[in-house]
């Protein structure tokens, strides 16, 4: 839906790094290098980024139940 504020496992704040990462990937950057540059060292934080898909804009078009 939207990037979690913190990493699920370790609790590190990660949401503020998402837009930089997304931009980098859109420009064709290497995901490993981008994650290293952003300081996401543990595989828990990296997994949150690698598995995330922004869906809020799609979901926002429908009414809340």
């Amino acid at each position, binding site marked *: 839906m*939207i*990037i*979690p*504020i*913190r990493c699920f496992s*370790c*609790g*590190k*704040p990660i*949401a*503020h790094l*998402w*837009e930089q990462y997304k931009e980098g990937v859109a420009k064709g950057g290497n995901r490993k290098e981008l994650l290293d540059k952003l*300081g996401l060292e543990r595989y828990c934080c990296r997994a949150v980024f690698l598995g995330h898909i922004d869906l*809020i*804009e799609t*979901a*926002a*078009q*429908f009414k*809340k139940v």
Partner: protein
Amino acid sequence: MEIQLLSSDKKKNKMSFILKGADPAFANAIRRCAIEEVQTMAIDDVEFRKNSSAFYDEMIAHRLGLVTLTTDLKTYNLPENCKCNGEGCARCSLKMTLKSSGPWQVYASELKSKDPKVKPVFGDTPIVKLLKGQKLELEVTAVLGKGKSHMKWSPGLVYYKYMPEVKIGEVKNAEEIAKACPPGVFEVKEGKLFVNKDELLKHDLAGMAEKVSGGAVTIEENPEEFVFCVESWGQLDCKEIIEQAAQEFESQLEEFGKLIKEK
């Protein structure tokens, strides 16, 4: 007891040091005090005036709760220790407001705080995305708290390992051992194996050397020396976390001593 600073990186909010002449119980007490007892600011209460975004109130409140806030320990008290008995006054709570309308990406920096010392650490944290016509208006209350009641109040990660002591005997397959371990930990010079101590402390997986060498290399743990790593989430800096942890530990012991005397 002796402390030796290994590295300190203010940009990454990380620090590591060696604690010598302590025992596991003490090291663990410090670690637990840092994670559970050190106080930080976090949003605890959210009052929604308007929310026509795609998210339910609870989801936005949860996201806001996890936002890290810069903490000023001198001016604020824990609500339960405050003169107002936890009712909420200027000395124990801080109100912030957020008003936004779409189309717009709402960031944590839009939280308007009356106290310039307490604001989101990472202003560009996305909270919610508003489409055209969607509105968000809310008031939040930030209070001091402890990590043991909710991890959002925890100041960071603190962990330690025993100091590894590597003994190298008669090694036949030096190259193979060096390859099996994280790069840089072992160096091979003229067929002989050497340990790089700085690299050894940075890695956790050097234990493979014992297996590959067939017993010629042994790694033992020194239970009186600890390699501490501190990683701050931004509310306090690493040094403050350990200082506060030590202070909390001390005040707990003092209270314990008092109770013993009374009985």
